[in-house]
């Protein structure tokens, strides 16, 4: 115990965490505002907004799922090549060769499905509690965009295993996109697929969208989303 106390007093520890242990309200407040990750929170919150059934933690859980997906996704990238037929054989390798590969893929898959549902439920919660009212109108708009991005993230990931399920799932939706009038649908679908059919070009485009472009955009929007929640008096 004494050893720990000495450690917490040491210059190394103090250089990382400038405040003392959270034993008084002062140091508890400092724990929040001297910490990069926690400083999005106010140091004090309303007691009723801490109650779990106030928000059902749905926004937080969406973010939690995003973290899980980022971690499992990064690990999956180590074993995945976005080309035909390697994409599919890499799936088989994950299943039979890579240690815990199947578990990793399961976790990524189920977390992705869960995220679509949880983000949707979060939207419903915000709607039914009227939390979109001024001054939060614009944050609601960002939230709607984030819902769309979540669906797009899940959708672009759906193609990557390159099995029958992926190929035809993506084909069905790109055929919907083609229905957009004035020739726009054809153009958008061509841009998305890098061709007229779902092929290797589509796989590379979906891979880049899935692993880089959409996550980066979503991360920036999430930052703004959380920041505005805080500025408008939320936790």
């Amino acid at each position, binding site marked *: 115990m004494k050893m720990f106390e000495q450690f917490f007093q040491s210059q190394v520890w103090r250089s990382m965490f400038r405040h003392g242990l959270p034993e008084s309200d002062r140091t*508890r407040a400092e724990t929040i505002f001297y910490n990069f990750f926690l400083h999005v929170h106010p140091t004090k919150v309303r007691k009723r907004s801490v109650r779990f059934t106030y928000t059902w933690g749905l926004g937080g859980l969406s973010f939690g*799922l995003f973290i899980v997906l980022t971690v499992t996704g990064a690990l999956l990238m180590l074993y995945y090549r976005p080309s035909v037929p390697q994409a599919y054989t890499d799936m088989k390798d994950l299943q039979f060769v890579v240690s815990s590969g199947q578990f990793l893929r399961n976790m990524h898959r189920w977390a992705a499905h869960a995220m679509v549902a949880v983000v949707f439920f979060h939207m419903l919660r915000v709607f*039914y509690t009227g939390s979109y009212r001024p001054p939060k109108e614009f944050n609601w708009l960002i939230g709607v965009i984030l819902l769309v991005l979540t669906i797009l993230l899940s959708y672009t990931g759906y193609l990557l295993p390159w099995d029958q399920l992926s190929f*035809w799932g993506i084909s069905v939706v790109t055929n919907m996109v083609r229905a957009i009038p004035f020739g726009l649908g054809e153009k958008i679908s061509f841009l998305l697929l890098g061709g007229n059919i779902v092929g290797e070009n589509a796989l590379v485009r979906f891979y880049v969208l899935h692993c880089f472009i959409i996550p980066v955009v979503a991360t920036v929007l999430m930052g703004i989303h959380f920041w505005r929640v805080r500025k408008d*008096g939320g936790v």
Partner: protein
Amino acid sequence: MDKDFKVEESVDVKKVPKRIAFIKGRTAARVKKADDEMVMTFPNLVIIEIIAFEIMVIVLAIVSLLVDAPLEWIANPEHTPNPAKAPWYFLGLQELLHYFPPVVGGVILPALAVIALIVIPYFRINIKREGLWKEHRKQTFLVLIIVMAMVSFILLMFKVYAMLIPTLIVTACMLIPYFSKKEVGFVSWLDTRPLSWWIMTWFVIIVVILTAIGTMFRGPEWSWTWPWEGIY
């Protein structure tokens, strides 16, 4: 007419000095109570966040141990599965395509849904959130009947019973407070529901029903199949 302002006072003058809040039209969501009890974010909130995250990861891990992610044969453009289904969150849309022409089911309706979601907070009626029947009862009744008759007629024309039935049920629920004089319980609760609440609830019911049908009740050639006959 309610007054436009409210004086807020606190019993603890040191903590919260006397202040006046001007609340125009009683619209802001922020000011509801004079002063709320505050607690330290650390540990009260942070601990809940950590526990919620941990439970979520544990549940995900257990599910991932028990249920494998699907993987079928390698993609084959020559061999179309019957039925070819989109991911589950698009199956509501795919179900719409079964009833409507592609431009309507695949483009116009989803675009309208997204636009409707975006504009919600920019309409004053959604900010005030007063019961549907609070003002202009006769006028509301007339508009509601006409709009719902038109929607129902279109749905009937395209034989979209999966949307028609919930639409009629929701309309009936909207009309209950108009005819009933009861001022307590379920009826009065319905009476206080604003228009936006009705539209959103209707939208969610339709989305859930269409997605469920597309996921569990559609088989080869998009024909109706019961879940026990196999989920495609």
